């Protein structure tokens, strides 16, 4: 199995709204891939379908060679997910939260695993604190640690460093890169953060209106668009439609 994730002709419609429109892509094992696009591009929808919590209108999704529409419970113990938009119970302590999720993932030697992650992500002094009392940065570290509890072969991340200060964001990225390199896991992240994408991703899928409009490694994309950063590439792609409309309007005026 070369591909950890394989998506074929994926479509998701909400009534008249086409959130994902015929998406096809594969993510090679042991690589980090980014879904890049503006708001409403379909990134989070794609992640939700990959996790099996959202049913597609049509198309197929396979993760670790399992069909996520029918056999997601065979893949889920080998996957994990984190998002700043999905919380952990605030009234439980950090440790209690991690113990609960360790049980959900069927871990053994739970205390050692939690202690190891707490040390790695520098939140050991917070273990007895209620999750709800943590700062955004502390919550993100705990949430990423939760996502690594089961040493996932596939890790899906929805804007993992959103709303973090540059220092904490950088540390989170470092941890993710280390984990990916040490474990050989496959990472797929939805992001708006071009620095993050340039730094940690091997492959980028540029999304717009539910479709992939371009793909390649960050250096390939930067070279293809004749730009100096992914941020400029992103703006080119995001504004392409506006530019096309302006050109058409100019032609009409002439």
């Amino acid at each position, binding site marked *: 199995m070369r591909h950890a994730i394989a998506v074929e002709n994926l479509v998701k419609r*909400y009534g008249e709204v086409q959130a994902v429109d015929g998406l096809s892509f594969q993510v090679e094992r042991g690589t980090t891939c980014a879904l890049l696009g503006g708001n409403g591009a379909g990134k*989070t*929808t794609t992640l*939700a379908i990959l*996790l*099996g*919590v*959202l*049913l597609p209108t049509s198309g197929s999704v396979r993760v670790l060679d399992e069909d996520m529409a029918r056999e997601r*419970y065979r893949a*889920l*113990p080998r*996957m*994990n*997910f984190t*998002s700043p*938009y*999905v*919380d*952990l*119970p*605030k*009234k439980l302590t950090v440790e209690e939260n991690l113990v609960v*999720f360790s049980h*959900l*993932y*069927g871990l053994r030697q739970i205390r050692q695993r939690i202690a190891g992650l707490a040390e790695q992500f520098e939140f050991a002094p917070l273990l007895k604190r209620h999750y709800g009392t943590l700062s955004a940065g502390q919550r993100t570290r705990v949430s990423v640690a*939760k996502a690594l509890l089961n040493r996932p072969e596939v890790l899906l991340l929805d804007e993992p460093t959103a709303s973090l200060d540059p220092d904490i964001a950088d540390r989170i990225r470092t941890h993710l890169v280390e984990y990916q390199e040490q474990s050989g896991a496959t990472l797929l992240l939805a992001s708006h953060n071009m620095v993050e994408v340039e730094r940690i991703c091997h492959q980028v899928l540029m999304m717009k209106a539910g479709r992939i409009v371009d793909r390649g490694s960050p250096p390939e994309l930067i070279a293809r668009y004749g730009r100096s950063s992914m941020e400029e590439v992103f703006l080119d792609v995001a504004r392409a439609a506006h530019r096309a409309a302006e050109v058409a309007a100019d032609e009409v005026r002439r």
Partner: protein
Amino acid sequence: MTGSLQRIYGMVLRHVYLWRRSWVRVLETAYWPTMNMVLWGFIAKFFASNSSIVAQVPALLISGLLLWEVLFRGQLAFALAFLEELYSRNLGHLFVSPLRPSELIASMIAVSLLRTCVGVGAAAALAIVLYAASIFDLGLPLVAFFANLLVTGWAVGLMVSALVLRYGLAAENLAWGVIFVLAPISGIYYPISVLPGWLQRVSWCLPTSYVFEGMRGVLLDAAFRWDLFFGAVALNAVYVALGAGIFFAAFRGARQRGALLQMGE
């Protein structure tokens, strides 16, 4: 309109907007007064026409109340276990883990059992101290009543959780109040025969009616009615199957709408 009045109007409007969008909130406004009036009306009617059982009144009322609490607390604890995940916006994490919906239900049943035993156990002990009325005087039949009422509570809890999955936290109040719709027609404090004929037919469709009639059989006639016991078991099987069906349908609907990652505060 003066500034102050306008601000007040604005705040009233804020709630009217909510009511307009939520039939649950509108229903709740009229729900409690109606339920209390119906329940106590039938209680008064029963005692006014049965002066011969005055000596049994404390046992009837306290046993009825405690068994009712088994049903209410069982259902509430079940539904709250689910609501807790919504309050903490944790549903997304749970359903991307290997936890299956059936396992979540099993955990909610376990939590409900624990909380009901603790809650009702404390109240039952206090009833012995304060009123010298022990629900444990019911003997072994108490186990049958307790089990049947708990299962009914879980069936209702499943339906409430399904509605919360469908309508979000707007349906939260159902968890606290929906079970009371069963109170006047379950014969907690009076026999089903007190109800009007058409309501009696509705009442015999509920497992709770069989349990409370059974309780009165033990208290007034010292007889355990197996027919009532099996009636409750059979109806519970139907309601649990119905509740589970509705819950799984709502879960599938939530997966189609993408609600599992978004639901919460």
